[in-house]
């Protein structure tokens, strides 16, 4: 099966075998050079592995962009208490579908990355917390883990080195908030999936009260390549501060939506025009959400100068997030899109923090009223001011994720709102 869309501009490091079911077989994986990174890592001191990852400049691909090697180095050096490596595979951000593909096509790449990471942080146990709705992926992962055990890459005395690392694939039960790291840990412990305040940070008090590190699927998938080829090698792509390659999940009004692996720093407009074949039906670009539904949206003008790296996105007032690029053309109904996102967050708020619990639902109701033509101009002031109360005041950033699309859309696309409020011609018809 060929992968739907590919582009010559791609640099396929972790997505090389997308579309090739053969890669799921452990023998094929090994034949193609798999588990060599693990072998090499096990020959090094754990700290040397961490150093290599530090040198690569790899940053967390789950959204926050925190340097992975630095995160690993926060783990205690002794292992008097059990350490855990948690792989966050609860991919649920609207617009994001990269981890699913990584696990679906190349499960061993992830398992190898997990094992290397676990070795580096002296963890004896890995939990892969996989989104519950990914039935197929869960099966593929379970099979791959079984194979890895059978071939001696996981479990006791890995490759005869005396290192023991176990892997458990845990199927989530369908809550977005379990993708937040502390929510994930709570859920894994069998509690309600609710984030908790930090400090203490997971490296000190993580899952089951033990030192833990949590990394995204894509982050860990890159690790075997970095260990095998060296940190410097990884830096041949991307920018000084955002090195390496990244999967971009492009959706919306482009000709060829899909997953594309590109060097960081790639111009957004080139992604749309050259990688994805431009806007559908020859329409005009209106707005882009470059990092998944929780980051501010930008207009066509900003899109034309935005580069897709952590810093480039911040420069135009948004964030790279998990690089889920949602493209909207001039027919898009911005208010409706924002309302749908807010509905999603209101539905997924765990409900602990007042601002998030009440604010998200209230915001959704106001937006729906505006959408139905019952809004007032004061509503926009209320929305701006009220969502401001939701920024930086809560336990986790879900609350901020409500504010981002609302505030950015009111700032950049106020006319869309006013048109609905004042009646008359409605902007967009999607």
């Amino acid at each position: 099966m060929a992968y739907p869309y590919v582009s010559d501009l791609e640099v396929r490091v972790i997505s090389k075998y997308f579309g090739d079911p053969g890669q799921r077989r452990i023998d094929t994986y090994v034949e193609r050079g798999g588990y060599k990174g693990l072998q090499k890592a096990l020959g090094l001191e754990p700290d040397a592995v961490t150093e290599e990852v530090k040198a690569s400049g790899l940053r967390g691909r789950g959204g926050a962009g925190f340097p992975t090697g630095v995160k690993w180095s926060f783990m205690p050096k002794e292992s008097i208490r059990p350490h855990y490596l948690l792989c966050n595979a609860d991919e649920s951000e609207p617009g994001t579908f990269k981890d699913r593909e990584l696990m679906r096509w190349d499960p061993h790449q992830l398992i190898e990355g997990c094992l290397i990471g676990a070795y580096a942080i002296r963890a004896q146990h890995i939990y892969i917390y996989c989104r519950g709705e990914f039935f197929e992926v869960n099966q593929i992962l379970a099979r791959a883990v079984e194979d890895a055990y059978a071939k001696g890459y996981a479990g006791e005395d890995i490759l005869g080195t005396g290192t023991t690392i176990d892997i458990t694939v845990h199927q989530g039960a369908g809550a977005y908030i379990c993708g937040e790291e502390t929510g994930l840990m709570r859920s894994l412990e069998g509690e309600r999936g609710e984030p908790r305040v930090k400090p203490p940070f997971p490296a000190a008090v993580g899952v089951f009260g033990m030192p833990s590190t949590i990394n995204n699927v894509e982050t860990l998938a890159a690790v075997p390549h970095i260990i095998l080829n060296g940190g410097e090698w990884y830096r041949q792509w991307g920018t000084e501060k955002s090195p390496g390659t990244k999967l971009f999940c492009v959706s919306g009004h482009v000709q060829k939506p899909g997953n594309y692996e590109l060097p960081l720093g790639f111009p957004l407009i080139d992604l749309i025009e050259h990688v994805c074949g431009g806007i559908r039906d020859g329409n005009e670009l209106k707005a882009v959400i470059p990092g998944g539904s929780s980051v501010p949206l930008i207009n066509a003008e900003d899109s034309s100068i935005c580069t897709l790296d952590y810093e480039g996105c911040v420069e135009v007032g948004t964030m790279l997030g998990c690089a889920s690029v949602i493209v909207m053309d001039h027919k898009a109904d911005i208010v409706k899109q924002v309302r749908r996102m807010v509905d999603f967050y209101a539905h997924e708020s765990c409900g602990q923090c007042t601002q998030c619990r009440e604010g998200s639902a209230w915001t959704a109701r106001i937006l729906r009223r505006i959408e139905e033509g019952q809004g007032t101009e004061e509503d926009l002031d209320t929305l701006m001011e009220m969502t401001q109360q939701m920024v930086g005041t809560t336990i986790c950033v879900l609350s901020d994720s409500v504010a981002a699309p609302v505030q950015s859309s009111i700032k950049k696309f106020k006319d869309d709102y006013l048109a609905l409020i004042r009646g008359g011609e409605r902007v967009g018809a999607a």
Partner: protein
Amino acid sequence: MAELVTLTIDGQEVAVPRGTTILEAAKQIGKQVPHYCYHPGMSSPAMCRLCLVEVEGAPNSMPSCVTAVMEDQVVHTESKQALENRRGVLEFYLVNHPLDCPICDMSGECDLQDYVHAEGRDRGRSDEPKRVFGRDDFGGDVLFYGDRCVMCTRCVRFMNEVEQDQRLTVVERGNRSVIDTFFEEGLEGTHWHGNIVDICPVGALVSKEFLHKARAWDLERTSSICPSCSQGCNIELHTRDNLIQRIKPRENLEVNGWWMCDFGRHNHEWVNRGGQLEDPLVRGPDGVIGAAGWRDALGDLLQHVRGVGGARVKAVATPFASNENLGTLAELVDALGGGDMVYRSVRAEDEIVLKGFPTLARRKDLAPNTSGAELIGFTRVGDDQAAGGLENIATYDGIIIIMGDELSDQEANFGKEAALFVYMGDQQSPAAENAHFVLPVSTFAEEEGSFTNVAGRVQCFSPALKASGMARPAWMILGALAAELNKGDAPRSAADAFSSLASRVEAFAGITYGDLGTRGVVVNETYVLSEN
């Protein structure tokens, strides 16, 4: 002593032990940072986000309930940033709140009402239809008004962490979250659930017993000690119309923390029951008993006592009597040449320990002052139902003094042979038919005094109700008689009665009534108390 950290809160310097939270540090300089989810007796989820304060240098406002103080930290609890946050959060709370204060039992003592009045917007901006959960019976004494809930989860945490009997949980998520019980079971059969009504900061959890009984502002609140077992929980009696309307625990970390058991909380009907004795009754020379004033009654009694002369006394007291009453009775018995002093009390089969605060238990001993009675020299007789044990007193021909024991298991011929039979109580007793004197005394709720709890802690209580008719504290009656016999001064107050006790009974030596304060004082250590 833990190392001290110095910081500045609202321009005021304060030094607190390392590890103290900003919220607790602020308390020390008299600043109450508004909060809901935080409760000092439970874990802190930092989820209501009402307690956020501005900390200079921090990128965001910090939850003061979990943020530990740092050296040289500069905190603002009333800056624009902090106030804006509170205004915002309070507005969010009201988006779905029914604003049914006029029919809410919490009105007048509600944190939401208070906070919104103090710092909220003058009107909310939400015009949207409100979410409706309605009312639910949680079992036990608790009703749940879902729409008033602020989702602080204190109730859930109390049941999980303090009572350690998981009966409540949060169901659903986001703004559909609601507190609920598991299946039909609810809170039925738990022993401490009344506390969740106390700690609910709003009127979401209310007591069925108290439902619509009184408005908070119509209640008088009096510090007292729970009389229902020997733990001696610190309580407040909430009264109106000279009746106890409800009992609430009062914080004392040495005794009950913030809590009290359901048994004690609801065991107050006996104080409110009618039919109290009102007048001193004196048996005249004709053998007919009739009402008299105190002066005559006491004059007669004194004469009678002198007339009997030499007979030893047999005294039966209730361990519901205060140290002062028991002490004065003992003093009188002494003045009369001595005798036997006994008490009877009900004992339950089991202790009910509050697992998350294990120094607190509903004790087996269901009376507040058995320790005091023991220390003062009374001996326990009778069985665990407080029955029996008075066989040799019932037929005694000397002086019998009954104080508070209602003799409910005794026959009408009790004390028939007695040369002098004095019955003191707040209720008439059928077994007091032969009494020469029936003297009305006040209950613990009507007088001042102290109890000694299971751990030897002497704690005082204040009068919350007016005694019926001419009823008086027992110490006043007994003290007057003892003073006559001893040619001393009669006690004029509970404090006088206590100091006379302290001078006579070694266990209380050196303690004054004034020392007891709101926390109590433990009796001299050498006095080991019997279990429970």
